[in-house]
């Protein structure tokens, strides 16, 4: 028998009814609280979070799965970059990847992807990336480029002319988050 039910049965009612009234106030207060638009919205969007349940998360607990889940597109791109760099026959010293400015991505209709900072790429795969304004941009031998609406590609830069062409394309866009 639950503890409170036990108390309820064996305690004289007059000693307990005030606690029941306070209990009812607490329950109604809570219901009222979470019925207000603001808190109902908070619970819906951030706590219950219908897109992902805790059960779903519990079925994916490996480090890689958790990273994929949290970092989304960026992490997928990073893994693709790493795989490409590991398997490519194009070896031209330490890879330095030229990042397109985010304003350029927007201008070209890439809405599903936002370029992270070089430090974040380094965190995920240990590969150096540079913004267009960094001195090492002149040494970039790989690049992330836009190939169409919501499409990007990871390509090697084989010649100085190719690199300069990319830098010229980006020169009117400030690299920023």
């Amino acid at each position, binding site marked *: 028998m639950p503890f409170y039910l036990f108390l309820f049965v064996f305690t004289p009612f007059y000693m307990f009814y005030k606690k029941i009234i306070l*209990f009812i106030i*607490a329950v109604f207060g809570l219901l009222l609280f979470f019925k207000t638009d*603001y808190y109902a919205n908070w619970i819906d969007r951030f706590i219950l979070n219908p897109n992902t349940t805790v059960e779903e998360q519990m079925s994916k607990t490996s480090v890689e799965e958790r*990273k994929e889940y949290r970092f989304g597109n960026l992490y997928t791109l990073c893994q693709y970059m790493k795989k490409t760099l590991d398997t490519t026959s194009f070896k031209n010293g330490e890879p330095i990847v030229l990042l397109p400015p985010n304003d350029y991505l927007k201008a070209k209709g890439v809405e599903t992807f936002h370029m992270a*900072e070089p*430090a974040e790429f380094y965190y995920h795969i240990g590969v150096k990336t540079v913004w267009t304004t*960094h001195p090492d941009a002149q040494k970039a031998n790989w690049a992330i480029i836009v190939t169409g609406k919501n499409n990007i590609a990871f390509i090697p830069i084989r010649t100085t002319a190719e690199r300069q062409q990319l830098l010229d394309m980006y020169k009117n866009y400030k690299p920023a988050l």
Partner: protein
Amino acid sequence: MNFIGLLFLLVTQLITGRGLMQLCKVQIRPLLMFCFSMISGVAIFSFLPFFIELLHLPITMTSVATAIGITTVAFMLPLFAIIKNFKLPSFNDIKLPTLYELPFWVILGLLMALSIWRCYYYPPNARDMLSGPEVLADFALKEKHIINSVFTVDLQSTNNYLKPPYIISLQIIYKLFVQPFGQTWLSILFVNFIIILYTLLKEKLHPLIIGFLMLYFFAMPEVFGYTYLMLFDYSNMIFLFGGFYFLSRYFEEMEVSNFRFAVFLFAIATYIRTETLIIEGMVLPLIFFYQYKDKLGAAKSWIRMGLFIIVPFIVYFLCMNIYIKHFIPVKYDVSNDINKNLGDVSFFLNRLYDIVDKLIFADHLPYYGYFPHLFFIIIAVDIIFFRKFNKEAITMLYGILVVYIGLAFIGYLLPLADLLHTTKRGMFKLLPLILIYYRSSPSLVKLSGIITNWENGRQEEKKTTSAKPQAAPARATKK
């Protein structure tokens, strides 16, 4: 997840924190002692990999475990003094919840469990972490130094590598001992902090009122998010709150033990966010006022005020003038970040206005829910109908004012401290101060008394003057 590693850290942090509190000779109830020991232990451990780096030693499992071992043993020494008189702590003040507390405990418990789960499950995701402390901690484990190859990367779009090494150090320890994403230390701080708040409120208020207050406190979307999203501000809030709480205890009885511990907590708050030093400087007039009022000798008074600012300043100096200046291989001069047009105070006044207009009363999304609104109502009732505030209430109100003005001043002094990031999260600092103010709020104390009297029946009415405070251990007054 390595549960043995977690257990090892929990035990060593508890011993270290408890040893520190014994050194300070702090006397508080066992449950509060436990929680404050735990958060102090986390704070002390956050210096270990940092010191290993300062000594140019490699950061490895062996060196970190050795540092933890030495620290734990060192802080265990003061505990030997109390072992001969050791009695099992009486946890009489821990009572089963009453029936009407249960709905709140269930809701708050579920929210805490969700926070702990997310803290464990999600990798650190905040941009400020991934371009600073988290990446440095990750590569510190690979390359055995905090100053590592991350500094060869293009860092022009970030300055997050210039933050004090509080999170870097804790991440190194928790990645080594607990799980690859570290971060679990945040849940340890969070849980202990919530227990502290609840316990303190329960000393003076009726549980039904506490339930609603805690609910409002939890349901601040902006704040709750940072219980599992690793950043500096939640930790900063906890330690600054602790500092103000022990300062208020000091003002009540002029007990130096509370003052010592308050200074430690303020120093940790500075370690986490160095600009907190400005806010602490603004607390000095209050200390001066109470020490003068209590006729503390001039020499003692000045020495304590000096200590109050010097200890956090040493921590500030260690971070800014030793670590950042001499260890970080990127030139940084804080003076470059200072507002070049200090004569124009309109920016300061605008920031004061914007905090209220755009953060507290934001139309579309009040960042802190209706928690501040509740405060404005309660303080208005207290001022209009009661106008009687004890030292604790005054300390908390002073703290709230100082944080508010201090944040605007920081924004004015350092334009990089923008409204919607730095100031918005800086405002966390005043939220627990509001909560602790409530336990001294004349209107809420009176309301608690009325409910308690009604609940306990008329025959006890005379015995109960207000919501019955639970007995705190006798404290010797030592000026």
